[in-house]
C-alpha cells in the first residue's frame, strides 16, 4: 500500500510565549502504523502533541492530516476530522460517570465503516462495563487509562495521539496496553505515541524518532535504535 501518510509534520517551530520549544520538527505517521517519539523530560514531546492538535499551534511549518493542511485549524475541527487524543496523565472527566465520559466522546465512524461503539469498546475493556455508573474519579489508575483509551476509540478517529500512556502503570497493565495498541494498528489505525519508556516504544512501534532540545536527533526502525548505544546513552540516558 503506497497511500499518503496519515500525518505529516513538516518543519514546525512552536513557542510558549518567548521560549522556543520546537525548533524545526518533522515526522510522518503512515496509515496502519505506530510511530513513537522518544526523549527525556522537557525536550518538547508534549509540545509536539499540543502542536498537532492545535492547543499550541506552531508559528512556522506545516501539519498535514490525510492530505489536508490543518496547520491553521482549531482543535475541535481537527478532532472532528478524525484525530483522537489520549492526553498525558489519563485526564478523564472525573466529575462524570464512566458512561457519561464515553457518551460525550462518541462520534460516528465515517466512510461507511462500522467503527467503534460504546458496546464494542466495552468488550475490549470488560472491567469498565462493571463500573459504568461509577464516577470516573473513583477508578484505579489502570482503569482510568483504559477509559482514556476507550474515550479516544469511540470518537472513531483514524489517527490516535497518545501522550505517555504508560506513565504510572503497572508492568502488567503496560503489557495489556501494548497488545491493545498493536491490535488497533492491525485494524488500520495510525498511532503517534510519545513516550519516555524506551522498551515500550521499541516493542510496540513500527518506526521511532528520538527528540532532544526541540529537534529530532534520530529516526529509524526500532531495531536500529535498540542496536544504537550511542543514541541511547546520549539522548535517553540508558
Amino acid at each position, binding site marked *: 500500500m503506497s497511500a499518503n501518510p496519515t500525518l505529516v509534520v513538516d518543519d514546525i517551530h512552536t513557542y510558549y510565549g518567548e521560549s522556543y520549544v520546537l525548533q524545526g520538527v518533522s515526522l510522518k505517521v503512515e496509515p496502519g502504523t505506530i510511530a513513537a517519539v522518544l526523549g527525556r523530560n522537557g525536550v518538547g514531546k508534549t509540545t509536539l502533541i499540543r502542536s498537532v492538535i492545535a492547543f499550541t499551534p506552531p508559528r512556522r511549518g506545516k501539519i498535514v492530516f490525510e492530505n489536508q493542511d490543518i496547520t491553521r485549524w482549531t482543535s475541535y475541527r481537527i478532532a472532528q476530522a478524525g484525530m483522537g487524543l489520549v492526553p498525558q496523565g489519563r485526564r478523564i*472527566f472525573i466529575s462524570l460517570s464512566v458512561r457519561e465520559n464515553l457518551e460525550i466522546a462518541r462520534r460516528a465512524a465515517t466512510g461507511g465503516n462500522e467503527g467503534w461503539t460504546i458496546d464494542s469498546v466495552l468488550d475490549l475493556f470488560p472491567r469498565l462495563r462493571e463500573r459504568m455508573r461509577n464516577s470516573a474519579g473513583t477508578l484505579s489508575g489502570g482503569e482510568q487509562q483504559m477509559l482514556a483509551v476507550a474515550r479516544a476509540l469511540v470518537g472513531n478517529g483514524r489517527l490516535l495521539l497518545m501522550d505517555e500512556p504508560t506513565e504510572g502503570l503497572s508492568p502488567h497493565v503496560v503489557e495489556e496496553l501494548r497488545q491493545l495498541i498493536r491490535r488497533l494498528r492491525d485494524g488500520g489505525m495510525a498511532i503517534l505515541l510519545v513516550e519516555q519508556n524506551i522498551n515500550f516504544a521499541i516493542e510496540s512501534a513500527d518506526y521511532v524518532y528520538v527528540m532532544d532540545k526541540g529537534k529530532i536527533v534520530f529516526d529509524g526502525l526500532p531495531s536500529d535504535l535498540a542496536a544504537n548505544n550511542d543514541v541511547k546513552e546520549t539522548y535517553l540516558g540508558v
Partner: protein
Amino acid sequence: MRKNHLGSVGALAFILIVGALGNFLSPYDTGLLTQMLIYGVFAMSLDVLHGYTGMPSLGHAAYFGLGAYVSAICSLKLGWPFGMAAPAGIVAAAVAAALFHLLALRTSKSYYLMITLAFSQVLWSVAVSWTELTGGDNGLPGVRRPNLGSWFPWTFASTHNYFYFVLAIFVVSALALYVFVKSPFGYALRGIRENEMRMRALGYNVWAYKYVASIVSASFAAVAGEMYMYLNSFVSPSSLSVTVSAQVLMMILVGAAGTLFGPVLGAGVFVILQYVLSTYTDRWLFVIGLIYVGIALYAPQGALVFIRDKFFAPKRGSAS
C-alpha cells in the same frame, strides 16, 4: 436505577409537601413560600452557567430584572395581554444574553465575573436614568397579576392562587432544566467546566456550547424575574442590582453548585433566614455572611452535597 427512583420520589414528595403547605399557611407565609420557589428558579438558572458550565456570573440580576422590566413595560405602556407580555420579557433576556456573550465569551473565570457585573450595572443605570420608560428610582407599580383569559377558571389576584401559579411554573422549569442538564448537551457542559481544552480535543465547539448555555440560563432567569415582578405587581431598579446577583450566587454556593436541587435548597434557606433574622436585627445580612463563611469552610461543596455524602452516600465522589 434505585437512585433515580429515589430522586423522582423525593421530587414528587417535595412538590406535594410544598403544595400542601401553600394551602394551610397564612397569606404572609405563603408569600414567603412563593418567593422561595421564584428564587429557586432563579438560582437553578444561574447554576446552569456557574455550577454546570463553570462560568461564574456576578450579574445574573441583569436577566432577572430585564425580564421583569420588559414584561412590565409591555403590559403597562403597550397594553399587551399576559400571553404576549410574559414571552416578550423572556425573549428580551435571551436576545440580551446572545448579544452580550458575543463579547463576554472572550473572557473566563474571574474576568467573566467582572464583565457580567459591568453588564448588569449598565442595565441598572439605564433603569435608573430612563425615567419616562422605567419610572426611574420609583420603578413601575401597578402591573396586574397574570390573567390567562376567561376560559381559565382561576385568577391569580389572591396570594394563594398566585402561589399555585408559581408552583406550576417552578415544576415546569425544574423539569425542563433537569432534561437539559441530563442530556448529552449537559454532560458536555460539565466536561467544559472540568477542562475546556480536553473537550476541544474531543471535537466540541466549546464556544457554541457556552453560548447556548448562557442563553438558556438567561431565559430562565427572566422567568423568575417576571414571577417576582407579578408577585409584587411592581418592578424597580433594585431587581437589577448587584445585591440580587450576589444573593443568587450565594444561594447556589450554600445549597450546592452543580446540582439542581442544591440551589433550590439554598434559595429556601436564604428566604427563611432573611425572614427570621430580620425580625430580630437589621444586621441580618451580617449573620447570613457568617453562615456563608461557615459553609465555605466546612462544606465547601454546599449543604446538599455535605448532607448527601454524610448520610446517604458512603462512597466518596459518587456520580450524582
